[in-house]
């Protein structure tokens, strides 16, 4: 069952010479997918992820997530929609520096106004899943890059989203950390049945993906399912 439907998506950045970043993409993503959107730099994959994450608006076309056309949402409704439906993992981790690992994970749930006890239990459960239960009280500055990105993954899953968008999540990580992170996300994808969509050109990520969507010049070049 498709949870994300993208129809005739276009994005043009206004400039002296307008830049057509996305040119008519039609795609669907199903529940539980572990997909990679790949392509060279400037191909439009980050723009595509930003739009399905509701961070950027398309020039034309529709994005329907669980029967909600997100183009029809007001800015405030969009923020609430993201909070309850979408998890984000950023390239630069982007944890809140004044919060500990556990508090960073709890943060999203607190925005959802869940009881504190539930927030703490879920945060610890997720930190255990990413292997950081013993670093729960540590602030991001004292964590390695790989550890910070694992906390970011835990944070992305904390709100029990429909899907997680990960924009180049391994770009700043060494090989060992990348392998470790991908294993964790793979396990969580299976365990929590959360859809993961990556934008990447990291071969190590592509090798783990079960679906690879290749974008070039803002158009889908190929879309293949891989059996692993």
């Amino acid at each position: 069952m498709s949870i994300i439907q993208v129809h005739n998506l276009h994005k043009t950045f206004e400039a002296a010479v307008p830049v057509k970043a996305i040119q008519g993409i039609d795609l669907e993503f199903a529940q539980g997918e572990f997909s990679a959107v790949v392509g060279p730099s400037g191909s439009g994959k980050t723009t595509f992820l930003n739009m399905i994450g509701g961070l950027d608006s398309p020039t034309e076309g529709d994005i329907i997530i669980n029967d909600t056309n997100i183009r029809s949402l007001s800015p405030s409704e969009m923020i609430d929609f993201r909070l309850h439906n979408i998890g984000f993992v950023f390239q630069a981790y982007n944890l809140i520096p004044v919060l500990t690992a556990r508090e960073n994970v709890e943060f999203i749930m607190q925005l959802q106004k869940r009881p504190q006890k539930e927030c703490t239990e879920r945060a610890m459960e997720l930190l255990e899943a990413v292997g950081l239960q013993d670093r729960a009280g540590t602030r991001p500055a004292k964590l390695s890059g790989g550890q910070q990105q694992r906390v970011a993954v835990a944070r992305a899953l904390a709100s029990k989203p429909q899907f997680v968008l990960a924009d180049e999540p391994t770009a700043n990580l060494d090989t060992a950390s990348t392998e470790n992170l991908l294993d964790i996300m793979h396990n969580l994808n299976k365990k929590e049945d959360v859809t993961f969509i990556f934008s990447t050109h990291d071969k190590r990520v592509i090798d783990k993906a079960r679906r690879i969507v290749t974008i070039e010049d803002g158009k889908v070049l190929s879309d293949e399912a891989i059996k692993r």
Partner: protein
Amino acid sequence: MNVFTLSWRNMWRNKRRTLITIASVSSALFFALIMRAFQEGTYDRAIYNYVHSFSGHVQIHANGYWDEQILEHSFVMNDSLLSVIEAIPEVEKIIPRLHSFTFASSEYLTKAALVMGVNPEQDDMQSNISNNVIFGSFVSASDTAVLVSEGLAEYLTIVRRDTTFSETKNGTDTLISLRMVKDSIVLISQGMYGYSTNGVYPVQGIISYPDPEMNSQVIYMPLQLAQNFFLAQNRVTSISLILSDKEHLNRIQQYLQDTLDMDVYEVMSWQEMNIELVQQIETDRAGGYVMIFILYLIIGFGIFGTVVMMTAERKREFGIIVALGMRKTRLMYRFCVEMVYMGLIGVVGGCISALPVLLYFYYNPVRFSGELAQMMKNYGFEPILPVSFDMSLFVDHGLIVLVLFFVSALYTLGTIRKLEVIQAIRN
């Protein structure tokens, strides 16, 4: 984590910058409080001296007295008038006075002087004026002697003597020192209904008035003696009312104006009777406000600079937080809490640092001497630098600082409102 804890931690994200900002705010508040407390203290003192030694907060005269201060505009203090005044609970003291002008002579010198006929005991109870007697002794209601103000006594070269004599008590000789005034003063004036009047009065003491103008011209006389001198038996020129709190002044003045027959009486506040003092205070206060404005302007730009830096540093984080699902209004609220924290710490720091200084000078006011003292006297102020310990100063300036923080925070609030998440994340 609640917004207060998060804001508190955010505030200390850059400890050095936060401490510098707080220190600058505290210093500004410290200087502002000290400056304003000294200013207001000087004004309060001048007002207190005027009100307690002369005018009272409110004064009742016969109608027309203030425009033409002659004895024919005096009045008899009758029971019906007294009953109206005594029925006002906020009236602490009722002081009848007979004021008129006279020529005062001593040997070869004559000077115009103001006779203040007053009940000495009653006056002393509310103003402790007997403490101002610097030579000789205070008078009582039944005395036939007078006190002469310091400046007038100097002009008239009234003789003061320190006398030492021995007294034998129970067979033991004891040396006794006395500060005495061995002189008399001749007064020549016009009494009621144009009669000329004169008299010779022993000078029992020299009295120092804080108000320089009064200090140069007053002859302090028991009320009955003054009434006799001016041939104005049972009459007074004014009734001064001292109130328990000056805040009641306008209301009570209005009440008296509504209650008394305004064809017979006039009711005036001290401000109406001493417009010069009010104007001097307002002019001086305006100068102070300019200084405070410049001080806060500098500090305001300092705070604004900090806020701009904080905003620039955290723009990306703001974008991330909004991307994750925090509403912009909540983010704004969180930032405001940070600003309030920083402002409050600055305010508390400033108040705490100013407090001991103000307390010290409140109990040990600076007394000027020499040219500076003379200059202050010329401006009509007592040459003393007292401190006002009014809590409203702390509250007002604390609020000003908080407003500065809030106004500076508007920059960040505007930035958050217009925040483009994608651009912020790419920042």
